[in-house]
Structure formats: structure tokens, C-alpha cells
């Protein structure tokens, strides 16, 4: 259909290069001052964006600087005296196994974010590829992809992941968890990208590119992907949040790296050793607080990115 269309349309003598069109649609590389003014205006219209960015920036700084300023080796069991309330040596106290809670929180934030980002990057890449292919080419590719996504989306990811993680013998590392989660992380990106491509493929500049003799693959790479880049960013942010949700959930059930101090495993251990009954509030509050901040930060960021990501909203505002 797409190939036939190009030849049936006949040659057009003066076909403007499609790139010229993109520049007016996408974010123009404006003058620096204009960019700042626009960024400010954007933040004023979408206060969730700076708040979310601030929360996540704080967590990245906490995990990044924390690794430099505090010995994270203390996150290993038996590195300190167990059952210690916060004191000078261990500002956040220690748990029942002698891990320093501050080191656990720093290392856990790092590991949890890494797991989420790896899983989401793989998921978004695969999902976008599938979404572009099925949305643009249609036909049986679209049908097959659509059905598979439909079937997989009916079941919450964590239920499938429980079965997979429980069936794998031996130890899981937080890295292999990221790969397991990425096995399902592509479902939503596929659906989201596909629905956008369905709208875009009938737009003028895509027709124009088709008429100028671009192949389907070229159109996707050179026309659709650059235009959808803001949307892909938003899809990625959502995917990171969903991957972290799955990772922490699995780990809280004990399906995680037993010898790595991820945030989810910390939740598991604090329940395993009934930290509440022992009154070890210092063990519970920091990791739980960080996980909550993570989710709220990602939620804020993604709702703040709405205007940036949604091409329709973006055009209305211009």
C-alpha cells in the first residue's frame, strides 16, 4: 500500500524537503535567552515538571554523592554492630544483620534506579521498534503484534514475572532482574508508539516523504522518530516508573537478589525480621521514604511532560 501509493501519485516537480517541515513542528533550536524564557513559561504552566525533576534530581544526587561521601561497603551484612539505633557512627542506625542503613539506602537507591533504567531502556527500544513497524506498515505485522500485546496486557506484569522469577534456580542478581523485567516492559511502549504512528502516518509531511521516494524504513527513521522524540521521552519515563514498580514488588516478595541491598530487598528483610515488632523505625523509614519519593517523582515528571510529549497539545500552545 505504501509503496504503491508513491508511484501512483506520480512525480511532483517541486517537492519541498520534508525536513523543512519538521523544524517548524519540533522544538526549534532557538536563541538561548528565548529558550530560557520558554522553559520558564513551560514550568509555570506545568508545575509538576520542575517538582518531579527536583525530586528525582535530589535522589540522583543522594545516590551519586552518597557513594562518594559514605562508604557503601557498609551495606554488606556484618559490617557494623547489628540492632543499633541511629548514632554518630551509623547516622541511620543498623539492621538486624549489621548493615548500615544509610549505606543500604544509598546503594539501594542506586541499584533500584539502575534496574529501572536498564529494563525501561530495553523495553522502550524494543517497544518503539515494534510500535513503529506495526503502526506504519499495518497488515499482518500489525495484527500479530497487536494480538500479542493485547494478550500480555490483560495480565499484570508482576504476576507473569513472579512465575518467571520463581522458576529460575539459584541466585538472581539485580542486573538479571532488569533483564527479566524488560521481557515485559515493551508492552506499553509498543501500544503507545503504535497509536501515535497511526495518527502521524497520514500527515502531510509523511505523504510528502513517501512521494519523494523514501522507503518505509527511511520514513520511520528520518521523519517519524525525530518528530516523536519528545513522546518517546515520556514513554521512557513511564516505563522506568513501571519497571521500578515491578522490581520493588518482586523483591518485596523475596524474589530478588538476596545478597544485594536493593530497596525492594530491604523491604523484604524488614518484614522477614519483623522490624516493626522490634521497634526498629530507623530501618523502615529511610528506604520506604526513598521508594515513595521515587514513585511520586516519576509520576510528577511524567504528568509534567504531558504538554511536551503530546504533539496536539504542543501545537495548540504555539
Amino acid at each position, binding site marked *: 500500500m505504501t509503496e504503491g501509493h508513491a508511484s501512483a501519485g506520480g512525480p511532483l516537480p517541486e517537492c519541498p524537503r520534508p525536513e523543512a517541515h519538521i523544524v517548524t513542528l519540533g522544538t526549534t533550536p532557538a536563541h538561548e535567552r528565548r529558550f530560557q524564557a520558554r522553559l520558564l513559561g513551560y514550568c509555570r504552566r506545568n508545575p509538576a515538571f520542575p517538582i518531579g525533576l527536583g525530586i528525582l534530581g535530589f535522589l540522583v544526587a543522594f545516590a551519586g554523592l552518597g557513594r562518594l561521601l559514605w562508604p557503601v561497603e557498609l551495606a554488606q551484612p556484618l559490617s557494623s554492630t547489628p540492632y543499633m539505633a541511629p548514632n554518630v557512627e551509623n547516622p541511620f542506625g543498623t539492621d538486624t544483620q549489621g548493615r548500615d542503613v544509610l549505606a543500604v539506602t544509598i546503594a539501594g537507591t542506586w541499584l533500584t534506579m539502575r534496574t529501572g533504567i536498564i529494563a525501561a531502556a530495553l523495553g522502550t527500544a524494543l517497544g518503539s521498534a515494534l510500535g513503529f513497524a506495526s503502526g506504519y506498515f499495518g497488515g499482518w505485522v500489525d495484527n500479530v503484534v497487536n494480538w500479542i500485546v493485547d*494478550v500480555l496486557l490483560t*495480565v*499484570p506484569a508482576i504476576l507473569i514475572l513472579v*512465575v518467571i522469577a*520463581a522458576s529460575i*534456580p539459584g541466585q538472581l542478581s539485580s542486573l538479571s532482574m532488569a533483564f527479566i523485567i524488560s521481557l515485559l516492559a515493551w508492552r506499553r511502549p509498543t501500544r503507545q508508539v503504535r497509536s501515535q504512528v497511526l495518527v502521524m502516518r497520514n500527515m502531510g509531511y509523511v505523504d510528502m516523504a513517501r512521494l519523494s521516494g523514501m522507503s518505509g524504513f527511511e520514513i520511520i527513521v528520518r521523519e517519524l522518530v525525530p518528530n516523536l522524540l519528545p513522546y518517546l521521552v515520556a514513554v521512557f519515563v513511564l516505563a522506568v516508573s513501571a519497571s521500578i514498580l515491578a522490581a*520493588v514488588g518482586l523483591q518485596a516478595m523475596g524474589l530478588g537478589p538476596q545478597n544485594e541491598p536493593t530497596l525492594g530487598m530491604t523491604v523484604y528483610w524488614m518484614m522477614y525480621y519483623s522490624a516493626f515488632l522490634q521497634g526498629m523505625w530507623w530501618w523502615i523509614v529511610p528506604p520506604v521514604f526513598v521508594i515513595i519519593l521515587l514513585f511520586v517523582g*516519576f*509520576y510528577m515528571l511524567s504528568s509534567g511532560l504531558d504538554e511536551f510529549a503530546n504533539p496536539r497539545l504542543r501545537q495548540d500552545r504555539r
Partner: protein
Amino acid sequence: MNLSGILKRLVLTGLVFFGAATLNFFLPRLSGGDPIAERLAQLGDSGGTMSAEALSAMIASYNERFGLDLPIWEQYLNYLWDMMRLDFGYSIAYFPTRVWTLIGQALPWTIGLMVTTTLIAFLAGSFLGAFAVWRRNAVTGTLMPLMMVFAAVPFYLVGLLLIFFLGYQLRWFPTGGGFSPLVLPSWDLDFAFNVLYHASLPAASIVLSSIGIWALAMRGMMVTVAGQDYMTFARARGLSDRRMFFSYGIRNAMLPQVTTLGLALGQVVTGAILVEIVFSYPGLGNLLLQAVRGADHFTVYGIVMILVLTICFVTLVLDLVYPLLDPRVRLGAP
């Protein structure tokens, strides 16, 4: 949703069921793990309380169950047939007990908790979402973002916070369990209160974090409804504010909420399962945790299968019921 939509949903349900069963059958074989051997190793570690007869009986039942002498495709077909009859076999951790018995004991707790909390959150959230549109003031203006932030946090983390503040610091509520350890289950008022008392914190954490889902969807619908001509006309007729809100506003905005229920179902189910784990509530979630800890694969598969089927079934029912509720969407309509 028309007839072909219903048909598609039916085929989807079948495919999901088939896929889940296939995954359960092939995963242990692909990963090379042997559940029975793992269990034996575990028993060896803990000193072992199982007699030799029970052990050999277990291995025999395992062999008989999977018909290990049969070719693999025949094993697979047998397994599918077992799953279709919802026969999950024996628990590995509590050997002579069947998986169904374990699930049967846990199921009433889960259903009770989930249905009650979903109903409360659905009604309260819908009302709040609608009210936020109807009366835009400082209270609704701060309440809505707060509820949405709660909705972004997984249920069980809200649960951990509630345990910490209300259970541990203030000691107003028990921190876990389905009823007091010293009380014997019986059908009287005392026990009922005891159960309700223990359910209040898990229920509160589910309601608190899911109320935003409904409020958000309802707010979107209510904005549309409030701008309709019939609302202007109702005001022109001099109807009371209250009547307009309930009979014209909520009534019209409420029905699409059923669709939201279908979309949020998976989130609600898995959320509630994890809340049960945090509160060691005697439902399916806690059973799942025990099964994962004990490498009790058959119980894990059984629970996942039941949850998957429940989600598929409820979605199907919602799809079927929705056209009956909303005269604007009729079966068979184009």
C-alpha cells in the same frame, strides 16, 4: 463494545489462559530447576520432618502427575487438561494438602478485603472526583493532587506507613494478621469485630491509594458532563443544585467509571496481594509469599493462575454488563 468485541474478549481470555498454562509448563523445564529436588534439599537443610513413606509417595505423585515416562507433548496436553479443570495438584511444601485446599482457605480473606475496599474506593473516589468539579474551592483544590500522589505510590508502601504511624507509634491498630492470635475463629459478633479491626489498616491502605484512580477518571467525565446543554437547561428550569449534582451530573458521569474499573483491575488485584504480604493478612498474597519462600512452585503457579483467570473473567463480565448499564452503548450497535 459490540458483538465482535465480545468475541474478541472471549478469544483473548482463552489465549491468556493457554499462554499462562504453557508458561507454567515449560518454564521449569527450560530453566532446568527441579522443584522436588529443591524441596528435598531444603528438607535436608532443616533437618527434615517428612517420613520416608511420605517422601516416596510425593515422588510417586509427582511422576504420576507429570507422567514422566510419556512423551513431552502428551505431558503437555495432560497438563493443559488439568489446568482446564483447575487441578493444580499437590502443594510441595505441605505435601498431602492439595493446592486447591490452600487457595480455598485463603480466598475468602482476599475476596472480602478486595471487594469491600474496591467498593469503598470506587464510591468515595467517584464522589470526590465529581465534587471537585462541582465546587472548585481550596479544599477540593488541595485534595485532588494529594489523592493523585497517593495513587502514584504502590498500595503496600502506604500500608507500611500506616503500620508505622497508626500501628507501631500510636498503637491504635494491630500491625498484622487476620485476627488476634489468641482468638479462635467462630461465627459470633466478637470475632467479626476482631476481624474487622484487623482488616482496617490493610483496607485503609488500599482505599487511600486507589481512591485517586477513581477520582481522576470521574473528574474527567464530570468536566464533560458539566458543560453539556442539558445541564444549562436544568439550571434554567430552576432545579436545585443538589438534584443537578446527583441526578444529572453523577448519574451521567458514573457509567464510564465501569470502564475505569476494567482498566484498573489488574492494578487493584496485584496491589491488594502485596498489601496482604505487608500485613501478613491470611489471604492469597501471604500464601504466595509462603509458597515463594518454600520453593512451592505448584502453589505459586496455582495462585497466579487463579488471579489471572479472575482478572480475565471480571473484565469479560464488565464488557458484557456495560452495554446493559449504559443505554448509549448497545450490543450489536455499530
